[in-house]
């Protein structure tokens, strides 16, 4: 299944999990989609390999950023009108608390979707949604002249 087909299928069925399975990096991280009411939540199950500080222990800062970037993109795909894989332009990640050795959750809010560029804010938490571990603001290119 190409990404364009995956996005079209996901938009029709409302299930983004097959699309997530089509992306090798998302599969490697074991990402899962949990749709609660109207909200798309991306889940990153804890794995030992995600640790960046074995003393605390805490998740690697890079993986927290990668997770927010992934969740932002997944939320954007869930909200957008065209079957194209958005391409990231930039992301700013703010680290708020150590990510502990447990499952992580994230959601993205499409702040603005223009014809060419979308702005997405993403938030990550663990057991308590009121205690964010990190947040991010990202821009994606929607129309990069590529059919997929």
């Amino acid at each position, binding site marked *: 299944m*190409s*990404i*364009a087909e995956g996005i079209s299928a996901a938009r029709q069925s409302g299930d983004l999990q097959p699309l997530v399975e*089509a*992306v*090798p*990096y*998302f*599969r*490697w*991280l074991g990402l899962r989609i949990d749709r609660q009411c109207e909200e798309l939540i991306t889940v990153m199950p804890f794995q*030992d*390999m*995600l*640790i*960046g*500080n*074995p*003393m*605390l222990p*805490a*998740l*690697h*800062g*890079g*993986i*927290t*950023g*990668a*997770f927010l*970037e*992934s969740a932002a993109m997944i939320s954007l795909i869930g909200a957008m009108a065209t079957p194209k*894989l958005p*391409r*990231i*332009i*930039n*992301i*700013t*990640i*703010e*680290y*708020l*608390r*150590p*990510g502990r050795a447990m499952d992580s959750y994230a959601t993205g809010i499409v702040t603005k979707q223009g014809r060419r560029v979308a702005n997405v804010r993403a938030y990550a938490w663990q057991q308590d949604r009121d205690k964010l*571990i*990190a947040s991010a603001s990202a821009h994606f290119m929607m129309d990069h002249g590529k059919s*997929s």
Partner: protein
Amino acid sequence: MQIDFQNVRQLMINGIPHMAAVGLELVSIDENGMVGMVPHRPEFVGDPDTGVVHGGIVTVLLDSLSGMCIVPTLNEVMVVATLDLRIDYLKPAAPRQDIFARAHCYKTTRNIAFTRGIAYQRDIDDPIAHATGSFMLTRPERTDAVGATST
């Protein structure tokens, strides 16, 4: 602080599970900072139609190098934790090629270190991403007070 190449390499490969998981290798350390590399692997692909690596791998590489390059600039042992990281993706990575990053700590205060870095493939003058980071510095006995994710 005197930290030699083999020491940092051992710390990175053996001490940090996620750096080991992505196969991160230290390439060099000098006064201009640190260079590291993540090898290409099929599981890192973000766009199966093109084979281009996911930006998350670039984020992990740049965050790791940006955090690590601070350590030799410090006069004492400190815990380095990412506070803020901005990444600009300058061009798509070429498929099936290793990704390198060079990071440099250009300013350290009592509590914060500031870094910049670039990621590239074959040519450092044709980078794929640029990163700006700030990192919290904490003396080890105050680790519990750290308010950010550790690198």
